Structure formats: structure tokens, C-alpha cells
């Protein structure tokens, strides 16, 4: 969290009613002057930090229909404020349409002190719990101390039927009796978010853990109370780990599973189990499977489809041989049992609908069995497990390839204490947008499930149940906020949990995912209509690149807002005109996109070529990457509706010619047989071929040292190379700078024989310390004495 926000210039609040007497600073007798300002819902504004660069007082939100989105109004008084409240108002479009104030919920932001930072974020008072405003008033918490920041968080649940448009009006903030007008604006985008969630999740609600959990937090052990927590998370598009009811209470499980299966918001539930000795109680498991099949056939719904197994006995097992052995046994037992039941059920349910029986049986056999840990080749083969490693294990392409190879069908990940920033986390002392961007990463890398270990780990660092549930940031040591996203409501007379600003951010991310998912489906459908291929990820890369690299977050809240606006433009155009970008590709210093334009729709853009296809035409747009910022701009129109779309396709690109490249190569001393020659590389006709030889080391290398590295500058974010290799190799690229001649690792990756397009992220290197790029050493690691690589033009991408 930066103390000085890079938003807009400071704008003092509108003229305040200084003359009103009922003000807070009794010591001086003067009324407190209150600066009212605003922040995005992706920002954490600390209570005790002075922000000198404050956005004007306003409530400004953009959202799809059926989406919940929020905004923050901040107050910073110069004296004590004894009460404040806000009165909402209906918002209207210029043509008189109304967005009711009843669609909005007002929360009073609560703060918790971080004493022991999780990583490098400062100590201080962070926002977290969001208390319904009426409770803050009832319990006298609508007070502000002098010079502290206090947020009011307002969320809007945009109705599915709301007309698109910009709704404006004025809210009235009342501070110690003085009224302050706050302009309000909600732009409703012309797209309706689906109720159905497609991003699976397993978030634990600990009902009872070491005498803590919601049983102590709420002083209520009834399953009715658990159900309130369950429902609360489902409202946030999150699927809790367990359905309501004990593992032994199969009747209740079936009842709840039927409800969950019918609820499009629920994606997942963990099948209940009972441990027995060194394995599972298979009698219980068989009864469960039988009852699930029976209920599925009776109800005509597949109760197995949303079920997964997740056995805590071998949770995070990798360093524990006993747990590994247990995992090998239990995963095998379940897999074999499911196969056996599938046969047995043919007789048991011989009179049932055999088509449905076959479908449900297959789902039972295919049940996702979560193995929560990274892949280390310790489990036996053929268990059918789905590895669920921590997020950082998906950071590199090589790591992602591991899970793409071993997990059939689904990929999951989790976060638990680690990793920490810059990886996305749910820590209190992390950027709020971090947790939102996690879902964008999931769509890019096809991580279909997200597991989180607890939303109600209400213990202190010495594992004692909390007393002050709202006053302790560090529950698990060295990870503020980890293990809880909810607070007990009973202390405020609330019958259920109180959420947090982090939970809102997670939901925001889940909603973003649904938009990405929908755009992907629209793109695939358009390609099918046109009889062509599509690659929505190649288009979305323009957005991803500004948000994250690998699985590290590399953005800010304003950029996230911009990417969200771009995504909204793409999806609203697709939804209402049928025009979608099928794919995109940047080659050298040009970006090329293909758009499908259905019959009846109009597509307008610069430099296009057209091809008629089934149902419309495919338009190809080329965007030169010659400016500092380059935008694919097009207009999509149909049926009187027009949508302007602008996609930032990247910064300036500079191509290093093969000739320049070839002329500045220094071969390894002693490699007398090395040869540098002209060649082709993939689609490039102008490339450089380097043949190297080294009998004493696996490393074969050469160095590229052009004078001045023309075209490279501190805005260069990536090096792009096309590398052709005849065998599988490991490629390393090390760089040196003018200030620091020590080699810095810029890239390590495994290349397969053939053409490899490589992107070398440079932003992670500290160029301020390293200085201007001086040399680039390319190392081929192979056991063979000879190595040959062909490298196409090097491109510097800003």
C-alpha cells in the first residue's frame, strides 16, 4: 500500500457547512472540517495513512446487470466526528430510467491493526470487516477520530432487468449534523451476468476447531447457524467445502445435495466421509454413493457432478511418508470402490432409467479427488488424483505444463499462508486487487478450481480461541488475515456472518471470471459458425499482460479498472452485435486480429481485410506497434446499437534485424568449431543459426553484445524471440547491465524440438540498479556435445 495514491490531483471536498455548531472537536469548540473523497473498490485505504492524492468525492461504479460492484466514499476530518450517516437516493438516466436505491447496500468500514506485517507492507490500520451501516449506527461506531480516514463502502446489486445506461444522482452524507452532497453514478453495462458459476471453489467454514470456529464465535452449534454461513458464501459465488450436516447424517446430506445441485451458484461440494483406522469407513462411503445414486435417479439430477473428494488425513502430505501412504491407500480405495459400485449399481438400479444411470455412474467414476499439495512424483500411478498446489507452482510455463500433463480434466490451486505478494493472496496487508486478479489468472491458465483452507479460523497465534473477533489481524502466525474472510455477527445482533472487503474483492474476481468465460464461449461459438478456429486467450493476453505475469500480480487498481472496461467493451459488443475477436497475434512490430462479423452487423476499424464465411465475414485488422501505446479500435454496430471497443495491444516494439544480431555475436572462447550462419526460423525468413560445441560442459553458449542495444530502453517489458532447436533443450538467458556486470538470470525454460516462441519478462529485473542492458548471454543446456539453435529476430516490446 502506497501512502501516496497515484490517482488524480487532490480535490478538496465541496464547500462544507462550517457554520453548523454540532461538531466534534469539543476541545477547541470548532467544528471539524471533513474532507470527503473517494476510492475504487479495489483499493485498501488505511485508516492511519495520509493520502495526499485523493480522488474527488463521488460514488462511481460500472457494472453488468446481475453483478454486484462497490465503491468507497472516504471521510478525513481534522477533528473528532461524533456521528455520520449517508442517505442514498434513486439514480436516474437522462431519459428517466431509475436505478432504485434499494439495490444498494451501505457498509461501515471497520479497521484492524497489522502489527507484524506478512511481508513488506507497512504496519497500521487496514480495512477489513464491512459492517452494515445501520449496525454501526446502532452500536455507536459511526465515529471518526481526528485526521483518520473512514470509509463508507456501498455495493450495488444491479438487477437483471436494469436497462443499460448511466444512472446519476446525489447521495447525502451527514457528518455531525451537516449535510454534504456526494455525486453518484452507476453505469450499467449492456450485458447480463449469468447466475451460474463456472469457477469451482472449496472454501472451508470451520464450524468447530480447537473450541473455536463459528460454534464459539456465534455461541451457536446448530446446523442452522452453519447454513447461514454457507448461504452467505454462496451469495458471494463461493462454494463452501461442506454442505450442512454431519458426515454421519447422510439423510441431511442428500437433502442438501439436491438443493446444491439445483442451485446454479453452487459449483462444488466435498463428499462427506468418516475416517476409520488407517483409511476410510468404506461402509459409510458405499452407503453415501448408493444414496446419492438413488436420489439422483429419483430427482433426475446428477448429484455426483458437483461432488469432489478432499480427505484431510493426507492434506499437504508431501513431506510426510505416513500421509503419502495414506493417500495412496485411500485414493486407490475410492477409485476401485467407485468402479465396483458402477458394476453393482446396474443390478441395484436395474429398473431405473439406464441412460441416466450410465451418466451418473460415469460422474461417480470421474469424481475429482483433490490431492492438496504440489506434484513430486510420490504418489502411485493411476490413482486419478487432481493435484492442487499453491498458486506459485503455476508461475512458470514449465510448472504449468506439469499439471496440464498429470491432471485429467481439471486443475485446481490453493493459497494457505503462502505464497505472499507479489503472488495473489487473501492477506489483509496485500493489495486488494490481488485477490480479484487471481480469478483472471485462473481463466488464463484454465485453473478450474480454487481451494481455501478456512474462512472462520478464529484463533490467535498461540492457537487460543479469540475473544476480540474484530480486533486481531494475525490469526495464523505471519499471515495477517489468512484463514478468515468472515466475522461472527452475533456481537452486533446479526444472525449470521459479517463479511469483509476481501470477500467482496473475491466475488468481484469470480464475476470477472464469468465474463471472461462467457466471452470465451461466444468466441468459440462464432468460430464454429464461421467454420474457423479461434483463440480467445490470444486476445485476452492484451489484458492479462497489464495485470500479471506468470502468477505474480504486476498492476495497480487503475489499470485493473481499465482492463475491466476493455473486457466490458468486448463482451457487450459480442453480446449485442455478435462481433467477436477470434484471435490476435503480434509479430515483430505489428499486431493482427481477426474478428468475426455476423450478417447484419457492422464492423469499422483501421486497415482491414475481409473474407466471407458462413454466417458473416472475418475481418482482419492490423495495428502497427509503433507508438508508445497502440490500440486496436473498432466500432461494432447492429440493430441501432453501437459499441466502441478499444483494446490496448501493447507498447512500441523494436525489431533487431538478423543482420544486426548476427553481427554482434561473440562465441564462447575455446569453441573453435562454432558456426554462425543465416537461416530461417519458423515463419521468419531472416534468422541466425548458431552451432556450438562443448565436450566438457552441458552448457553451450554465446553472447549478444550490440553497441548500445538500440531500441532497448527502461520501458522495455519483454524480449521476444523465436527459437528453433533440433532437440529438447534447456535455454537460459542471462543479462548484464552498465551498472552491474554481474549476470542476472532473465529466463530459464525447457524447449522442445521445433519452433518455440519465447517471451522474456524484463520487468522483474531492477534496471535502476542494473543499468542499461549491456549483454545478453544465451546458454543452451544439453547433454549432447553439440548444440544448434536458430533464433529469429529479437523484438523489444514496451
Amino acid at each position: 500500500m502506497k501512502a501516496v495514491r497515484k490517482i488524480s490531483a487532490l480535490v478538496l471536498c465541496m464547500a462544507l457547512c462550517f457554520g453548523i455548531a454540532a461538531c466534534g472537536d469539543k476541545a477547541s469548540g470548532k467544528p471539524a472540517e471533513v474532507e470527503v473523497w473517494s476510492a475504487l473498490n479495489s483499493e485498501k485505504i488505511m485508516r492511519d495513512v495520509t493520502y495526499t492524492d485523493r480522488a474527488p468525492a463521488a460514488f462511481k461504479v460500472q457494472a453488468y446487470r446481475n453483478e454486484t460492484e462497490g465503491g468507497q466514499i472516504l471521510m478525513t476530518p481534522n477533528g473528532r466526528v461524533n456521528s455520520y450517516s449517508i442517505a442514498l437516493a434513486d439514480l436516474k438516466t437522462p431519459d428517466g430510467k431509475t436505478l432504485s436505491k434499494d439495490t444498494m447496500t451501505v457498509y461501515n468500514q471497520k479497521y484492524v491493526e497489522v502489527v507484524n506485517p506478512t511481508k513488506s507492507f507497512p504496519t497500521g490500520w487496514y480495512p477489513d470487516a464491512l459492517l452494515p451501516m445501520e449496525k454501526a449506527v446502532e452500536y455507536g461506531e459511526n465515529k471518526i477520530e481526528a485526521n483518520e480516514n473512514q470509509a463508507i463502502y456501498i455495493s450495488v446489486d444491479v438487477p437483471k432487468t436494469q436497462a443499460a445506461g448511466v444512472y446519476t444522482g446525489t447521495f447525502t452524507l451527514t457528518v455531525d449534523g451537516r449535510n454534504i452532497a456526494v455525486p453518484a453514478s452507476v453505469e450499467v453495462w449492456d450485458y447480463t451476468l449469468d447466475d451460474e458459476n463456472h469457477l469451482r471453489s472449496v472454501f472451508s467454514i470451520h464450524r468447530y476447531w480447537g473450541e473455536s470456529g463459528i460454534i464459539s464465535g456465534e455461541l451457536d452449534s446448530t446446523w442452522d447457524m452453519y447454513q447461514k454461513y454457507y448461504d452467505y458464501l454462496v451469495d458471494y459465488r463461493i462454494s463452501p467445502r461442506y454442505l450442512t450436516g454431519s458426515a454421519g447424517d447422510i439423510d441431511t446430506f442428500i437433502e442438501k445435495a439436491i438443493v446444491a445441485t439445483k442451485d446454479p451458484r453452487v459449483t462444488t461440494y466435498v463428499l462427506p466421509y468418516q475416517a476409520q483406522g488407517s483409511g476410510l469407513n468404506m461402509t459409510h462411503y458405499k452407503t453415501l454413493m448408493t444414496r446419492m445414486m438413488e436420489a439422483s435417479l429419483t430427482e433426475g439430477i446428477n448429484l455426483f457432478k458437483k461432488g469432489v473428494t478432499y480427505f484431510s488425513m493426507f492434506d499437504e502430505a508431501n513431506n510426510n511418508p505416513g500421509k503419502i501412504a495414506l493417500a495412496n491407500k485411500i485414493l486407490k480405495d475410492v477409485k476401485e470402490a467407485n468402479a465396483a459400485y458402477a458394476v453393482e449399481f446396474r443390478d441395484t438400479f436395474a429398473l431405473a432409467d439406464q441412460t441416466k444411470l450410465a451418466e451418473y455412474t460415469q460422474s461417480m467414476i470421474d469424481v475429482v479427488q483433490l490431492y492438496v499439495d504440489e506434484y513430486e512424483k510420490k504418489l502411485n500411478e493411476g490413482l486419478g488424483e487432481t493435484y492442487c498446489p499453491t498458486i506459485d507452482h503455476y508461475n512458470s510455463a514449465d510448472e504449468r505444463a506439469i499439471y496440464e500433463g498429470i491432471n485429467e480434466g481439471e486443475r485446481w490451486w490453493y493459497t494457505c499462508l503462502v505464497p505472499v505478494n507479489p503472488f495473489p493472496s487473501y492477506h489483509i496487508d496485500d493489495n486488494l486487487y490481488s485477490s480479484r486478479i487471481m480469478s483472471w489468472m485462473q481463466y488464463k491458465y484454465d485453473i478450474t478450481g480454487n481451494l481455501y483452507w478456512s474462512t472462520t479460523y478464529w484463533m490467535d497465534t498461540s492457537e487460543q480461541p479469540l475473544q476480540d473477533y474484530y480486533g486481531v489481524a494475525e490469526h495464523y502466525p505471519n499471515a495477517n488475515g489468512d484463514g478468515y474472510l468472515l466475522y461472527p455477527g452475533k456481537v452486533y445482533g446479526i444472525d449470521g456472518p459479517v463479511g469483509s472487503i476481501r470477500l467482496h474483492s473475491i466475488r468481484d474476481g469470480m464475476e470477472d471470471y464469468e465474463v471472461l468465460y462467457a466471452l470465451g464461449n461466444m468466441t468459440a461459438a462464432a468460430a464454429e459458425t464461421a467454420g474457423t478456429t479461434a483463440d480467445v486467450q490470444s486476445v485476452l493476453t492484451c489484458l492479462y499482460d497489464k495485470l500479471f505475469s506468470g502468477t505474480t500480480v504486476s498492476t495497480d487498481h487503475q489499470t485493473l479498472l481499465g482492463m475491466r472496461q476493455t473486457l466490458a467493451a468486448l463482451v457487450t459488443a459480442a453480446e449485442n452485435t455478435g462481433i467477436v475477436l477470434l484471435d490476435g497475434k503480434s509479430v515483430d512490430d505489428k499486431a493482427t486480429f481477426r474478428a468475426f462479423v455476423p450478417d447484419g452487423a457492422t464492423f469499422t476499424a483501421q486497415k482491414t481485410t475481409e473474407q466471407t464465411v458462413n454466417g458473416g465475414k472475418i475481418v482482419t485488422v492490423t495495428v502497427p506497434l509503433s507508438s508508445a501505446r497502440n490500440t486496436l479500435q473498432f466500432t461494432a454496430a447492429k440493430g441501432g446499437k453501437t459499441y466502441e471497443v478499444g483494446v490496448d495491444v501493447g507498447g512500441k516494439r523494436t525489431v533487431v534485424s538478423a543482420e544486426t544480431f548476427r553481427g554482434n555475436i561473440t562465441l564462447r572462447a575455446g569453441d573453435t568449431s562454432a558456426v554462425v550462419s543465416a537461416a530461417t526460423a519458423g515463419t521468419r525468413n531472416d534468422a541466425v543459426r548458431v552451432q556450438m560445441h562443448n565436450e566438457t560442459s552441458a552448457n553451450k553458449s554465446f553472447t549478444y553484445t550490440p553497441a548500445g542495444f538500440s531500441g532497448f530502453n527502461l520501458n522495455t517489458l519483454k524480449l521476444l524471440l523465436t527459437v528453433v532447436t533440433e532437440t529438447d533443450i534447456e535455454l537460459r538467458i542471462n543479462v548484464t547491465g552498465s551498472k552491474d556486470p554481474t549476470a542476472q538470470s532473465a529466463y530459464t525454460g525447457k524447449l522442445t524440438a521445433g519452433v518455440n516462441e519465447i517471451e522474456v519478462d524484463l520487468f522483474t529485473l531492477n534496471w535502476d540498479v542494473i543499468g542499461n542492458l549491456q549483454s545478453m548471454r544465451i546458454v543452451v543446456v544439453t547433454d549432447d556435445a553439440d548444440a544448434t539453435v536458430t533464433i529469429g529476430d529479437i523484438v523489444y516490446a514496451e
Partner: protein
Amino acid sequence: MKRTKIFAAALALALAAAPMLGCGDGKDSTDGQTPSNTIMVNDFERFDTCFSPMRAANYFGVVTMNKDTKYVKSGAASARLRPMGDWYEAPNAKPTLRIPFDMKLKGENYGDFSSVVMLTADVFNASDFDVDCRVYLSYTGGYTATKEVSLKTGAWTRVAYSIDRALLDITGDITKITDLNLEFPVVEKGGEIPDLYLDDIKLITSKDPFKPIEMNFADNKILAFEENWEMLVLPTTSGNGYFDPTLSLNTNPKYAQSGNSLKVDFVGQDGTAPQWVYAGFYLPRAVLKKSGFDAKVGTDAFAFDVYNASANRQRLMIAMTNDAGRVFFKYIYIYLPVGEWSTVRFTFTELNRGWPDSIKEGQQKGDGATAAGGGTDKIASVYVHWDYSNADEAGDRTLYFDNFRYEAED
């Protein structure tokens, strides 16, 4: 399952109701009717300070703030308790409400019992049946003996729990008493749930210092069960009240090495015990310290005799903890043949070596022992446990213990 009554019966004090005190002050009452040495610990007038600290152990049930004056002893509110437990999750676990004396939100810690002679609380039983309530206190590493109180239907009951400060000073740290525990009966599936109202938890203090128990540790003896005080200083433990063994004095010479011995009755494994229940008793720090434990050297030994009067071979576990309650020595393979006396003996070298991360079946004591914290830590308590996870047979168990002692090098 009854526990040994190692405390004197509670005094039945007929105290006048204390005036209402906000949970936020906790000052002595001064209305003239209540003794000046009464401290209001919890009057249940505010949810945040009075209710939030409570812990609902064993899936307690529901606790709500009651403002129906019919069920308020003093002030404007009381706590309504519906102890129901969880029939599925823990069918034998008695719902227990733990009320901390360290009330962090109130900024008060009442856990120093150096001058406390009695704790009182008022409970109204609105159920249409009498309810048994077991009352005891917790401290780090253990808890005091229980007092059983019958809460009569339709009436207020003054729960009075007397404090034997001399004993508490031995079994735990009298300055760090952590919780008041109210334990209620298991509610069977579909059974009636008690409807109770709790108000005004107070401590009665005395300015008189307590007289320490005089313990005799001559001739390397620790406990031989020949003197009255010896039966008083062994708290039971299981982490689950249902499985706490019953301790009693045995005078039958058949089951004693000499004179009397300690009889320990363990409730049998009926298939409902949780996987990890270690039921037993422990020798408190004060007993060990005053008996000279800290001065023993490597070749000295800690020993005791145990007789298995059960029908099957039994397995004992011995563990030693430090002042923080951390186990740093553990040995889990003490097999007791049927109908015989066995001697359990560990040298201090073995004890100080700590315990290995994993002890395999068949290993002997000390085999491959890699210190997992042993060495220089002072031993706070010695626990003698019976391991339910390995007790497959049904039926209760009875063991006799005698002559806890030190043995010098031969």
C-alpha cells in the same frame, strides 16, 4: 462416570444477590448486603465483553443474551444456555461452556486465585426437568475436580464452588486459572435440550493467606498413598470429561505393594471414543519439584509400580511436559501383563534425551531417541495415560499404582 472427589464439598453460601454491575467494571460490590470481598466477574450485561470471550466446547449448543427479566438475577440481562452438544460429531462429549477469567475485551484478568475462596454463579432452570451441571476450573495443563450441581426445574440455583487454594497451588499455577467450566449432560438424538439462564459469576475472596499442604518426600518417595494428602494432588485428564478415569484409595493388600495404593478405573472403549483420547492422571509440577525431581542426575531413575487387574494386557503411555505444556518426553509402549505387578522405570538420562519423532512398534524405551525438545527444559508434569486408540476390547479397565519414587544409581 464420576470423578474422585478430591476437593472438599462446596460450602452452601446463601449470599444475597449482588447489585448489577456492568461487565465493563467488575469492581467490588459495595451495597452493604454483599460482602466487600465479592468480585463480579461476569454479569452478562454486554455481549461484546461478557459473551464473546466464552468458548463453546464439545459443540456446546446455543448461548444467547436474555433480557426477559423473569430469567435475570440482577441487572438487565443474563445468558440463556441451550446445551445440546452434537449427537453426530461427538456423541459422548458433554457440552461444556468455558468462561475465561482473562477477559481481554474488558481489560481484566481474574485468573489470580491466590485470595479466592469461592466462586458463585446463579442459574435458573427453565426446563421442565432437573439438569445436572458439573463445575470445574481450568488452568494450563489441567483442571480441578468437578462439583456436581443439580439444577432444579423452575428455580434459581446458586452454584457455589469452593476453592482449596492449598491444593490448587500444587496442581496448577494458582495465579493463572484460566476458565470456569460448566459441563452438562449429553443430549441423546431427539432428546430434550435443557433451557438454562446463567447470571452473575462472582469470586469471593479472603484476605487470609492459605496454609500450604505439608508434603513428605523422605527417602526418595514421591507418592506411596499412605498419607491423606497424597490422594489429593493427582488431577485426572483426558481432554474429554467422559473419559477421565476415577481415582480412589485402595486398601486391599492384594493390589498394593505395601500398605495402600492408588486405584484407577478407566471407562472402557465402547467404540465411541475419539481416535486420540489419552485418559489418565498426572503428577503436578509442585509435587515433582518439592520431591527433588530437578536435582536428579542422569543415572538416577524415576519409577513406579503398576498392577493390571483387567482381563487383557494393557498399554500405558508416559509423557512429561514443560511449563508451557509442551511434551518433550513420551514413551508409549509400556505393556502390562494381566494379574501382575510391573515396574516402570526411566533414568534421567533417558528422560532428558527427549522423544523420537516416531517410535516404532517393538522399540524399547530410549531406542533411537532424538531430542524433540528434551534436555534442559524443566519437567512440569508427568502424565500417565491409557491409550484408547489401541484399546479394542470392550469393558472397563482397572489398574493399581504404587510407589512413585526415585531410584538412585545402584
